[in-house]
């Protein structure tokens, strides 16, 4: 067992507001091994993007880390001073955001944006940086990279721009990439290409990926492990195949059951009644208990920690030692 690259322990993110402090992330813990692709899936508002933002250190105020630790390669990074965190960003942790249209400065050529990033972190000369930038562009599948080097973002299509964004994220050879909904804003036909590209490049460059998305298809296609988030907590985490085919948490069961399958019989889609609770109305105990078909007394009182179930872990009292398992 190699040492994990990223360790998140009991992370709490809170938002102080006029009417009290809202807990957006509650006791989130997970690891990412070097080179692995961890998917983080859940509904809008479940806290996926916040987790990513907390890891890169770009939480928007008034949001702040209330408690917990984040370690990269063994060292703590959640309490670093601004200057040190800046060195880590880009160099050891890269990021990709959702909208390629707005992720690139429209007034600067993409070549310059690449060279700038490379020179800041790798301290190379201008010529060397330029060659490296062109090589990166070619790797991401952009034809005629040399000519396109001096073009502006608006001269690229959406898919091409996202390739540039990936190139920028990889420019300084980071160990971890936080990809927040990288394909959501793209056409379906391009999505597959970009996911494939991301998989291939991160494998070639030896980077791990935290792939945040609400699209299970992307998870199934790209990830090694997946974490299911619900109301700011992790509901289940484990290898992709296991979570998809043998979900242990009732929420995951509902989630997987609500995805239509192209293969085999068309069965009725499962629907989970109700909606994810708002931040200021999270139920006591397990956050899912009002909607859970198998909730019992303990669920309404105590918040479950991650319990081991075969090869996955689920935050559910059904799987606690001593309980008989799901009905």
């Amino acid at each position, binding site marked *: 067992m190699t040492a994990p690259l990223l360790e998140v322990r009991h992370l709490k993110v809170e938002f102080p507001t006029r009417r009290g402090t809202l807990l957006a992330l509650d006791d989130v813990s997970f690891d990412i091994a070097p080179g692995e692709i961890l998917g983080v899936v859940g509904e809008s508002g479940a806290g996926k993007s916040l987790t990513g933002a907390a890891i890169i250190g770009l939480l928007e105020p008034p949001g702040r880390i209330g408690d917990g630790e984040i370690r990269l390669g063994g060292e703590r990074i959640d309490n670093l001073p601004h200057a040190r965190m800046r060195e880590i960003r880009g160099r050891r942790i*890269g990021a990709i955001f959702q909208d390629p249209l707005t992720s690139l400065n429209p007034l600067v050529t993409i070549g310059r944006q690449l060279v700038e990033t490379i020179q800041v972190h790798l301290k190379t000369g201008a010529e060397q940086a330029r060659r490296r930038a062109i090589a990166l562009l070619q790797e991401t599948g952009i034809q005629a990279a040399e000519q396109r080097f001096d073009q502006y973002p608006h001269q690229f299509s959406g898919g091409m721009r996202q390739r540039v964004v990936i190139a920028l*994220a990889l420019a300084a050879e980071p160990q971890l990439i936080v990809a927040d909904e990288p394909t959501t804003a793209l056409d379906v036909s391009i999505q597959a290409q970009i996911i494939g590209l991301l998989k291939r490049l991160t494998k070639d460059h030896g980077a791990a990926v935290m792939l945040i998305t609400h699209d299970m298809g992307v998870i199934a296609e790209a990830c090694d492990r997946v974490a299911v988030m619900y109301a700011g907590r992790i509901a289940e985490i484990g290898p992709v195949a296991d979570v998809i085919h043998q979900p242990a948490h009732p929420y995951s069961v509902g989630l997987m059951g609500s995805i239509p399958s192209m293969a085999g019989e068309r069965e009725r889609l499962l629907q989970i009644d109700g909606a994810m609770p708002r931040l200021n109305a999270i139920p006591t105990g397990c956050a899912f208990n009002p909607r859970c078909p198998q909730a019992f007394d303990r669920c309404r009182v105590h918040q479950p920690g991650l319990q081991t179930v075969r090869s996955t872990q689920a935050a559910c009292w059904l799987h606690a030692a001593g309980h008989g398992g799901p009905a």
Partner: protein
Amino acid sequence: MLAFILRRLAQALVVMLTVAFIAFMLFQYVGDPVTNLLGQDATPEQRLKLRTDLGLDEPFPVQFARFVGNAAQGEFGLSLRQGRKVSALIAERFPATLELAATAALIGLALGIPLGVYAALKRGSFMSQVVMTGSLLGVSLPNFLIGILLILVFAVVLKWLPSFGRGEVLAIGPITTGLLTWDGIKHLLLPALTLSLFPMTLVLRLVRSEMLEVLRTDYIKFARARGLPDRSIYFRHALKNTLVPVITIAGLQLGAIIAFAIVTETVFQWPGMGLLFIQAVQFADVPVMAAYLCLIALIFVVINLVVDLLYFAVDPRLRIERSAAGH
């Protein structure tokens, strides 16, 4: 691009013609056009001759065309108040106003941009609150009051600077300037400062608000995520994107400065076009009013055109490229 220029030129022509029309109406129907052209001391024979010469019985469009022809050559007749040729009066006064306006514009930009950037970057700090309150005062204080206050402080109480007139001027060809003499500069200081306050506060608030908007964009977030140093983010990326809209508005301010010079010139008895215009309004000196109107319209139209062209030079998205966007 050529089509754009031609279209703007056509628009400019329309505006000029409209203004010429208004000026023409002033000439014809406000007061007596013969008096407007000959002055008040013309003999009855001169009047009659001029009336036939002018063809005041000729159809309207012909008279208008003649007026436009004259106006294009700068011929507006004699000033009712002073009996001299209007064109000579304006030519005499123009350099003074130009000097005042240009100096005020420079001061406004030189102080407004840095202060605006400071107020945006150090948002919430005590100094930035001071700057913002000061700018609110700058907008609420009328031009003439600022002038009077400055006179009170610097001329009456401290006796450092003179409070009226232009002081010693040197002639360079047809242009007179006070910038080359210490006395001239001393006389220029207070009026220029007064005139610069309004555009300065405008630029300050604009730069601040634009910069705050830019700092919230995705591409700045992405730049931060890439670990670019703050200085790069603020001054190479954010400032560049901020200045693009600022350029247009600042350019248009130049026109407003020339107009507001009317007030400043009155306060300081600065012998410029503005003072001439006010005296013309007080006296109902129609030829001077009409001439000033046409000249100002010309200046505005030219400024607008230049600013539009500047936009092209600065924002690459507006330049229509021939190369096709790739896929």
